[in-house]
């Protein structure tokens, strides 16, 4: 890590050879239609105590390269060419028995998703203990507690007796870090160790990881899709694109002066580095709204500017406790804000801040405990079932997970057509014309109609979800973490698409997100939520330039790479 302050020259004088050297690495996968290379000709060197980051989008081969280094390629994958030298020993084709010896105490791993990487049926302590035991370290309760405490888990002796589902995401990641570092490996592979966590937690975890590895002198291979994060945490960055290493070099140098076109795009679209609102909508929004809605233009003039008003909204959930008596949990506490027609309002907060609960109440999927939601002058709680049906037509959601929100059994045509059919709009021919139009609007080829969700990439699926949301010509779109699951480049595309649609169709967006970097790019107004309360509201520029609350400041500080200085032409 950086705090060790070891440059490449110094390191090579300290140790003659690098700890890990990957030479000309090809990794190929056997599939139904033959063998293809996921990684070709990868080069990588990590010196003792150094942190190297591999950056790239999903499918770039970054994780595959890392898995090859610890001998954990999936059964259909193999190293077809090249060498992986660990301290001079080629481990690319070494016997599994040797790999088992190396794993844990020479090469450790911190995996990506803290939710799925701990076995739900074993206590946390046991999962640490078996690591210690397998690597011949002392494995008593005190040793387990020590490993967990070092990873920053408070009250670790008691926590060790709990199960993973009793832990928050950040605590689980700490447990996984404890497992990865418990046997003091010389090399730690950290595969997107914090991408599933909130930004503030992310910062704490990365800070802690940095302190631990520099104390132990561990080399780190950090895998990430976030260039900002990589630049901030690593000594050197390796950029991978479609299985090839396209560029590598010292972090800041690479960020300030990217050579390869892909790196340039990556630097330009990294959300943490971009700093301005996508302008299309803001500039043209108001006039085009009038142009494009001629039939309703007269009516709309009489409508209030605030299409959506949320007043003193509160939601209390009853939690069951051991003795059957319920305790109250206030998920949303007296929240008021309003959304102006044709603008984007973002609700920002960490998980558990109540932002998604607000979205569900605005969509009338959840009844508020108290308070009102006024849509277009009408309190939504007074709507009859029939009016509610009409309301749903005007307010459409786009959800976070483009994998989960599309029915895998429906082809794309049917997926987009379904809302039209549900609302009995048009006949077969006009519906088909509409679907074709929608696909054009979201820049998908018409041939997509016959395909199924599993044949599409994440970005394409999210475009389909956008098309489906637009099918009923809604006025308001609620985006619940609509771009959080996407790679940065795809994310930038979808955000641009949303901005363009807003300017063309005069849409109003309510954007629910934990990602402040995204907010900066898309929102006009920001509402910051913390523990169910609205702590700060204002225009995006105001909130970003002069945040008032400590919580907002903490959120802003936690954006990876946020403090890195970039020349203006790149940002």
């Amino acid at each position, binding site marked *: 890590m950086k705090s060790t302050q070891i440059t490449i020259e110094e390191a090579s004088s300290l140790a003659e050879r690098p700890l890990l050297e990957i030479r000309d690495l090809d990794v190929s996968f056997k599939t139904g239609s033959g063998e293809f290379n996921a990684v070709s000709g990868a080069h990588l060197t990590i010196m003792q105590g150094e942190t190297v980051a591999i950056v790239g989008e999903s499918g770039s081969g970054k994780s595959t390269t890392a898995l090859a280094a610890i001998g954990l390629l999936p059964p259909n994958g193999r190293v077809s060419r090249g060498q992986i030298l660990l301290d001079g020993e080629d481990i690319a084709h070494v016997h599994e028995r040797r790999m088992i010896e190396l794993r844990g*105490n020479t090469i450790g791993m911190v*995996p990506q998703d803290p939710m799925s990487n701990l076995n739900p049926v074993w206590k946390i302590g046991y999962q640490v203990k078996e690591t210690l035991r397998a690597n011949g370290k002392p494995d008593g309760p005190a040793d387990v507690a020590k490993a967990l405490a070092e990873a920053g888990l408070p009250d670790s002796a008691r926590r060790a007796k709990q199960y993973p589902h009793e832990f928050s995401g950040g605590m689980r990641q700490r447990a996984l870090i404890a497992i990865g570092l418990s046997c003091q490996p010389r090399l730690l592979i950290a595969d997107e160790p914090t991408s599933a966590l909130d930004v503030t937690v992310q910062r704490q975890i990365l800070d802690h990881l940095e302190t631990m590895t520099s104390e132990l002198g561990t080399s780190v291979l950090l895998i990430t899709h976030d260039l900002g994060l990589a630049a901030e945490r690593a000594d050197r960055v390796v950029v991978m694109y479609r299985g090839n290493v396209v560029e590598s070099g010292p972090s800041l140098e690479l960020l300030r002066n990217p050579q390869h076109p892909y790196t340039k795009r990556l630097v330009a679209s990294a959300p943490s580095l971009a700093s301005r609102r996508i302008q299309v909508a803001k500039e043209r929004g108001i006039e085009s709204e009038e142009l494009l809605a001629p039939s309703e233009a007269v009516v709309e003039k009489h409508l209030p500017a605030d299409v959506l008003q949320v007043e003193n909204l509160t939601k209390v959930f009853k939690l069951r406790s051991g003795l059957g008596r319920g305790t109250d949990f206030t998920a949303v506490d007296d929240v008021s804000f309003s959304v102006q027609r044709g603008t984007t309002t973002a609700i920002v907060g960490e998980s558990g801040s109540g932002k998604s609960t607000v979205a569900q109440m605005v969509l009338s999927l959840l009844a508020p405990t108290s308070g009102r939601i006024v849509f277009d002058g009408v309190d939504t709680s007074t709507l009859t079932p029939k009016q509610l049906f009409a309301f749903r037509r005007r307010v459409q959601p786009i959800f976070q997970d483009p994998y989960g929100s599309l029915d895998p059994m429906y082809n794309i045509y049917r997926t987009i057509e379904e809302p039209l059919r549900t609302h009995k709009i048009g006949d077969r021919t006009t519906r088909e014309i509409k679907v074709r139009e929608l696909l054009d609007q979201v820049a998908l080829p018409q041939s997509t109609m016959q395909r199924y969700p599993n044949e599409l990439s994440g970005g394409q699926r999210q475009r389909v979800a956008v098309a489906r949301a637009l099918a009923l010509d809604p006025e308001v779109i609620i985006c619940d973490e609509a771009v959080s699951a996407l790679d940065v480049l795809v994310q930038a595309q979808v955000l641009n698409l949303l901005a363009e649609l807003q300017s063309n169709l005069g849409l109003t967006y309510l954007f629910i997100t934990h990602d402040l970097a995204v907010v900066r790019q898309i929102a006009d107004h920001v509402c910051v939520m913390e523990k169910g309360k609205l702590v700060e509201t204002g225009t995006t520029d105001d909130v970003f330039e002069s945040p008032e609350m400590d919580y907002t400041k903490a959120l802003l500080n936690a954006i990876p790479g946020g403090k890195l200085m970039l020349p203006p032409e790149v940002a």
Partner: protein
Amino acid sequence: MTRYILRRLLQVIPVFLGTTLLVYYMVFALPGDPIAALFGDKQPPQSVIDALRAQYHLDQPFLVQYGIFLKNLFTFDLGVDYTQQPIAATLARIFPVTAMLAIEALIIQAVFGVAFGLFAGLRRGKLFDSTVLVASLVVIAVPTFVLGFVFQLIFGVQLGWAKPTVGANANWETLILPAVVLGLVSFAYVLRLTRTSVIENMNADYVRTATAKGLSRPRVVMTHILRNSMIPVVTYLGANLGSLMGGAIVTEGIFNVPGVGNKLYQAVLRGEGPTVVIIVSVLVLVFVVANLLVDLLYAWLDPRIRYEK
């Protein structure tokens, strides 16, 4: 946890009343006069018929009969069946036999089903896996009575490894062949369920993490794949135990096992209301208790499940 168990046990009461009432009514509604059937072609004197009717309360309306049945049951007076045999003695004779049969069948299903399923899942697509898959499909597709007769003929008669019929001397050894037949179909289901579950869990992230920790393959399989894969299997086995106790009519018939299935079948044929209902009641109890045990085992296997509400 105690509250949960108590609540589950209290649930037995309505289940018990409901099933007995229903079964009693169905036997009552069966066509034919059970007393006349006792005498076959002979025509007994009317006084004898009347006396028997009075003894079994057949001259009373249905609900009164059911009431008397319940009263007798709660005073532990099970009475005699239509052949004047005490029902309590019959139960004491048939239930141990069926219990032995069911336990043997359960062991065959659980131990062999899980072992084969685990092995097949770990070697997915290899020869062992394909063979076992086809074989289990055959077992599932062929009706039990066909399997029963084939096994009886091959192992009982031709090879002479076991007695072809059990008869009066039912013990652990003589019951093995019927237990194999009885357990075979569920063995195939358990095998397939375990296999699917193992394949699913093999690709779980935490299994890869376990390997990355430096654990040996056997340890990864035993602690991280097998235990997680047992969760659906245990649910199936529990639901299946009930049918092992009561549903062995065909198998018990083929191998002439003097157990519950056989007795129940005869009692239904004779229209012996009290006998049928008492046997069914015991089966209901067994079923409820077995399912409770399974739910507790389930909570032990999967700590995310807690029954404290």
